[in-house]
């Protein structure tokens, strides 16, 4: 079967003078960078850079305009109703911590409970775990079904009148399948429960509409979307920002300060203290433009087809086992174990052949313990992958098993 990426040439890492033979299967960790994104960042830094939101001169005003334009475009991308619902952060981790300490901490009591799922990345576990420990609240864990998807009916049984928050991923980083987020958020809203959605993995599928999902918060990182690291986003539903306090304070977020008191700005700027990471915001905007120009329909059609091929070829290997049951969907990642071969050896053997995969617990130790394993190998797809990458993976896995299997 021939599935050839029309976009691989957009990524300079595959150039002859870089890594022409790289088989990169770790896009769930971070996506490679298209030249268009790198160029936009280079051009901004060389020719347009200044401090945003502070300078009273043309260069700075121009940068402020770029940042606010990016905010508008990201609001559109997420289906948010206003740019005032969009906060720039350093990434998903900061976005989730921001919600924890700017908002949830002001509401939590020893009677409260917070619900997460069994599949959460540590970034969407530790902030809630710490808050619960600090305030004597309880952290409840919604189980997954055999396919690794949050079981809505089981989750509902965890909810009571003291449930303060449901914090779950739209698509978990080890499993990759989509959870019934809309159903959960609608139920939560009917019961006055706050919802936080970790969109770090789902964002690379596009087609997000936070209004339709009815979530209160949605977090993602730019580098999972072919942008740079260091730039993330937190969507806060209209009206919530005014109830939140800045958890990190400093320059640029106040309208009046005395030695004894301060009055903070309204809107998202009150969470963006210090200087904006403008070059990363420019990179994220360029990535959005790049993806929009390709079209999400074309991206998803291609990756679904390639994923289908990947799942089919991996299913042919009787010495590897997916960590959850495969289903009808074709997520853009696949996590597995190899019979009696440690995950680190699998990744190491593949690396020697120029194939980059992730091995370990993928910042989801509790999930692995729940599944009765210590670690797994994860392969994940991006725009630059094609059928030859899958074929190389299959050969690499076969060789690994041949060399390292214990009879």
């Amino acid at each position: 079967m021939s599935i050839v990426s029309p976009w691989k040439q957009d990524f300079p890492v595959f150039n002859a003078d870089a890594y022409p033979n790289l088989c990169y299967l770790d896009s769930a960790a971070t996506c490679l960078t298209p030249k268009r994104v790198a160029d936009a960042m280079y051009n901004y830094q060389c020719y347009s850079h200044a401090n945003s939101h502070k300078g009273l001169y043309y260069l700075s005003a121009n940068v402020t305009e770029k940042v606010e334009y990016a905010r508008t475009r990201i609001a559109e991308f997420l289906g948010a109703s206003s740019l005032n619902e969009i906060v720039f952060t350093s990434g998903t981790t900061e976005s989730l911590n921001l919600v924890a300490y700017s908002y949830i901490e002001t509401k939590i009591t020893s009677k409260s409970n917070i619900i997460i799922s069994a599949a959460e990345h540590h970034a969407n576990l530790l902030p809630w775990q710490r808050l619960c420990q600090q305030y004597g609240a309880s952290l409840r864990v919604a189980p997954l079904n055999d396919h690794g998807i949050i079981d809505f009916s089981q989750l509902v049984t965890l909810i009571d009148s003291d449930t303060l928050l449901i914090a779950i991923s739209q698509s978990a980083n080890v499993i990759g399948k989509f959870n019934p987020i809309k159903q959960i958020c609608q139920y939560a809203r009917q019961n006055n429960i706050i919802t936080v959605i970790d969109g770090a993995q789902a964002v690379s599928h596009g087609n997000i509409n936070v209004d339709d999902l009815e979530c209160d918060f949605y977090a993602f990182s730019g580098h999972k979307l072919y942008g740079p690291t260091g730039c993330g986003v937190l969507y806060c539903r209209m009206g919530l920002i005014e109830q939140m306090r800045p958890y990190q304070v400093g320059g640029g977020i106040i309208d009046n300060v005395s030695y004894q008191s301060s009055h903070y700005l309204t809107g998202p700027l009150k969470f963006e203290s210090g200087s904006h990471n403008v070059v990363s915001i420019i990179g994220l905007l360029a990535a959005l433009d790049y993806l929009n120009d390709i079209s999400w329909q074309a991206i998803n059609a291609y990756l679904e087809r390639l994923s289908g091929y990947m799942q089919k070829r991996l299913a042919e290997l009787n010495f590897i086992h997916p960590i959850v049951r495969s289903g009808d969907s074709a997520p853009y990642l696949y996590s597995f174990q190899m019979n009696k071969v440690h995950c680190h050896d699998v990744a190491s053997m593949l690396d020697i052949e120029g194939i980059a995969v992730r091995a370990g617990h993928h910042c989801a130790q509790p999930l692995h313990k729940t599944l009765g394993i210590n670690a797994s190998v994860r392969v994940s797809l991006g725009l630059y992958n094609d059928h030859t990458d899958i074929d190389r993976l299959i050969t690499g896995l076969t060789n690994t098993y041949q060399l390292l299997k214990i009879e």
Partner: protein
Amino acid sequence: MTTQPSKISNDALQLYQEVLLKHHKTPTGFEVEINNTHSADGVNAACGDEIVVYAQVEAGTITALGFSGDSCAICRASASIMCSYLTNVEVDQVEAIIEHTISIINSTHTDELICAEVLQPLLAVGKFPVRRQCAILPWRTFVKAVLES
């Protein structure tokens, strides 16, 4: 479609040498039962290696040594080598031996190194920086079990 194994690269065979693979597949000291006087857990959080090293120390000498756990081939082989190498060694001598072994694992200039034959399979690991921590884990865990207890 059945995929047949293709030729395994020399780089892979350099790391997973025959002797090292023998230690991995038939390890010395793996899950052996001894009257251990010392034990400790070791974890390599980045990749998921988990090992328990246990030792029997009598009159200042390591009389028996074993390990258990779920760890990669490099870690298992290194633990197996350790079990062979440290048995019947006096505790007073162990610290220097382990420091020397770790320096061998960390070295990229293996041609210049002189080391005991039993340690030879570990020489290749130095050329694979991300695997050094796997090879070192059993030795560090032994230190934790016996020298720091």
